[in-house]
């Protein structure tokens, strides 16, 4: 079985794909199904759509496993498919009508916001905040490019190198986004707490 942290698909796993791809697919779903499902949810904010996309991810993986070159971990490849499918879904006109308008803090406002961050680390702010129980709501309110790096880093336990691979981005870009995402979250938590 492929373990997180491995850099490539094992020979045993590769052979399984060659011999019985259906069994290999089952194992892949058992191992990563829920993670993929939750990742899709964070993008789409809709459980039904996330379920559709998650199934689509494994179907695509099944049909395109031959194109997986084994240069990265399997989960990185799966997450990349997930992210791309979610983005495709989010790009379509009909989908845009279903989801709320993008958070305004994703634009100029966000940049201003970052400059007036409160004292303390995000974790200190977090501990102090009564909003702790609503952390996820704050994360979900972040602009997508910040939200995704936070979730991939903290929830999916990916390294910045792996996140860069999943998002097809530069590692430094990922680091910058991660830093800004923390700042935004810190600000959001502080603001949310003070409003109570």
């Amino acid at each position: 079985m492929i373990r997180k942290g491995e850099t490539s698909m094992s020979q045993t796993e590769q052979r399984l794909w060659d011999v019985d791809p259906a069994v290999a697919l089952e194992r892949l779903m058992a191992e990563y199904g829920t993670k993929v499902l939750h990742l899709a949810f964070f993008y789409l904010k809709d459980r039904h759509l996330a379920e559709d996309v998650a199934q689509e991810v494994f179907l695509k993986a099944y049909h395109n496993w031959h194109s997986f070159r084994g240069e990265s971990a399997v989960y990185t490849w799966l997450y990349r498919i997930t992210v791309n499918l979610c983005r495709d879904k989010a790009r379509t006109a009909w989908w845009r009508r279903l989801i709320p308008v993008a958070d305004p803090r994703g634009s100029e406002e966000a940049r201003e916001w970052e400059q007036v961050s409160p004292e303390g680390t995000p974790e200190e702010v977090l501990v102090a905040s009564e909003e702790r129980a609503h952390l996820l709501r704050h994360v979900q309110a972040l602009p997508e490019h910040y939200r995704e790096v936070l979730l991939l880093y903290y929830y999916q336990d990916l390294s910045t190198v792996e996140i860069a691979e999943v998002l097809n981005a530069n590692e430094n870009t990922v680091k910058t986004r991660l830093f800004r995402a923390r700042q935004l979250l810190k600000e959001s938590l502080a603001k949310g707490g003070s409003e109570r």
Partner: protein
Amino acid sequence: MKEPLDLGQALKAEIERDLKDWTFTPEMRQNVLARARQTPPKRSRLPWWQPASVAAAAVLITLVSRHVPFRMGTASVPQEKSQATDLGAPAQSSTGAAKAEPPAPSEDSKPKDSSGAQSSEPNAATMGLAPVPGAGGEANAENVTTMGIPSLKAMDGAGLRAFGLVAPEHGPKPGPRIAPLPDGKGVVALTSQAATLLRDSLEPNWEVTLPRLSSASQVAVSPEGRIGVTADTALIILGADGTTQASLQLPEPIRRAIWGSGERLLLAGERAAYLQRSPGAQILTLPEPNVTGAAFAPDGRLALGTADGLALYDNQGRRLWKREGTGPGPLFSPDGTRILCGNSLFDGEGNLVTPLPSSAEGAIPYARGFLAWQARELTAYAWTGKLLWRWRPPYAILGLFPGENGKLWVLMQTGEGGAIQALTEGGRPIGEPRSIGAEPLGGAAANGKLYLLTDQGLQMLDPLTP
């Protein structure tokens, strides 16, 4: 090393609290497995456009095939002036055993059909060639009737156009695997599961069921509606009703089949190109190896793009001139006075009219001239060579389809499948790219709709409908 953070733990705890009962259920797994079983995974690591992958395609041949006996043609070409050679040789097998320059059979030496009777077909194609395995339909027919078409809508009138896709990087240009019928009321497609003649676009209506032929690689349709399917060294010709009319066989694998006006037929192989000027006529061997593209002018001239240049032949098969240069095309202007090949625009005499600023990967005619594209750039030119507009797409361009009223559809390759972007005649995007949710293999445009052959089956799209 990632530092331990309360933020991470808190986030995880919160997510797990919120979503702990929401998992990838066994039902979802079963659903995925059931859908996966419908289409086996690709086992080849080769790109789809390479022969070994394409060989997995099934072929289009009619179930109700009737093998029409052939008659050797007698058309002659002035050999002293022609650089073309005669390929009147009856092929003895599909292994390429035909010898060049055999004596042309006389008019009355009509070949006999399997029952020994002389053919009475006045216009039967003739190569005196061996029957193609599987083409007879009786013994090898494995009927194929199913194919997924998610959403078919009404189509009216003619105007179907189809283009093969440009292979990414520097691979060989794939032959078209989907082609429109000239009456505008159907398409022919090869898929990995089946070959389908979609006769009536109003309803998914399979008029013909088809036997498989494992080496089928592309389809072509003549202006009169004859359907050609290439399979290794053979071209199987079907009538518009799906019945087998003839099979032609070359001494080498056919890379490309192109029909022009007057039912002129060009078959391109690796070693040479083969021209049949009319159905039943002798086939001429044109000494042009590695043909990358071909086009017929309205007056019957033939332009051949090869690995090392552009050659122009008259309608008798005589080479008029050859110029250096490589690239997409060739492409004739509607009046036949201009020929585009690569990044060069020639006149009919082979004089360079103008070089184009960049080398394109593909080109198609367009209402105001022609369109040339690279992966990340689409440029419109007038036939004078004047640049009209330029558009840079968000993804790599795979193919281009002219729509109605000058609109264009650009098929692009995203990270996971294809996407379509509509453009105005002036090159302005209409809306945003729309994902097709599958890997595109080819396409044909018809009356405001796109037929796309994908790894998920044949799709019909209306790119302008939100």
